[in-house]
């Protein structure tokens, strides 16, 4: 008889990632709301259309507002927004790649393949974070 393996309750990877997924989900809402309100405060109503505003809300990168007619880009590309972008990328990358791991492990059962998936996704995670910090610092 083959039974399903149930993870023990406690501070294991599944529980930690369960908590992280919820907390980062709430953090996306907070970061998006702060970004949206700041954009409106900085004059987005007069200088850009709704698509550009949404692009900024999802990810406050100065390259996302270049096709608007804001007079001065300085307020849109300072260190605060770089911190925001790195936070969104860290939360987003971890939340997303962990989600990909959960989905793949639901459909691919062999133990060896699951370890391989975890390894590949871990490498991808590190690589993606380095790449995106590079983009944020350079833009």
């Amino acid at each position, binding site marked *: 008889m083959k039974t399903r393996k149930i993870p023990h309750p406690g501070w294991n990877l599944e529980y930690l990632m369960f908590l992280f997924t*919820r907390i980062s989900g709430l953090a996306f809402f907070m970061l998006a709301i702060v970004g949206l309100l700041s954009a409106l405060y900085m004059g987005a109503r007069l200088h850009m259309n709704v*698509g550009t505003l949404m692009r900024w809300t999802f990810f406050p990168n100065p390259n996302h507002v270049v096709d608007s007619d804001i007079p001065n880009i300085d307020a849109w590309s300072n260190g605060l927004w770089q911190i925001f972008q790195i936070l969104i990328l860290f939360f987003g990358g971890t939340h*997303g790649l962990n*989600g*990909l791991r959960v*989905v793949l492990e639901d459909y691919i059962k062999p133990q060896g393949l699951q370890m391989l998936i975890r390894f590949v996704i871990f490498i991808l995670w590190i690589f*993606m974070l380095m790449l995106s910090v*590079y*983009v944020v610092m350079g*833009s």
Partner: protein
Amino acid sequence: MTLSRKVGLRDGLRYKGGGPMLAWILHRISGVGMVLFIGLHVAASFFTQQTGSNLGINLNIVYESIYFQVAIYFFVLFHGLNGMRVIILDLWPRMIEYQRELTWLTWLIFIPVYGLTVFIMVYLKITGA
């Protein structure tokens, strides 16, 4: 009693999970879609920024086309709203009793917000404003 998980595609499609199951499957599809598309967009931006190559520029042109934007907006908005429902259910487990109503509430918020934004995006695209 063994737990058999060998469910074929036809049985899977015939399973009548209703609204919450549709929300679950869309949550999965939209999550994987976001990882793929936004990961591609970040990689393309990196190549454009560091090497100025045509690969990155062309990938970003595809990514910024209206078709992709409408799909990405669906993924992000649905994943966000449905994720909020999941968080509410996890924080207050008693709400499980009303999960069908919460699923309907998700759609009630999603449809007007998504519809209005897509209308504006398509309108601006067609009129070229």
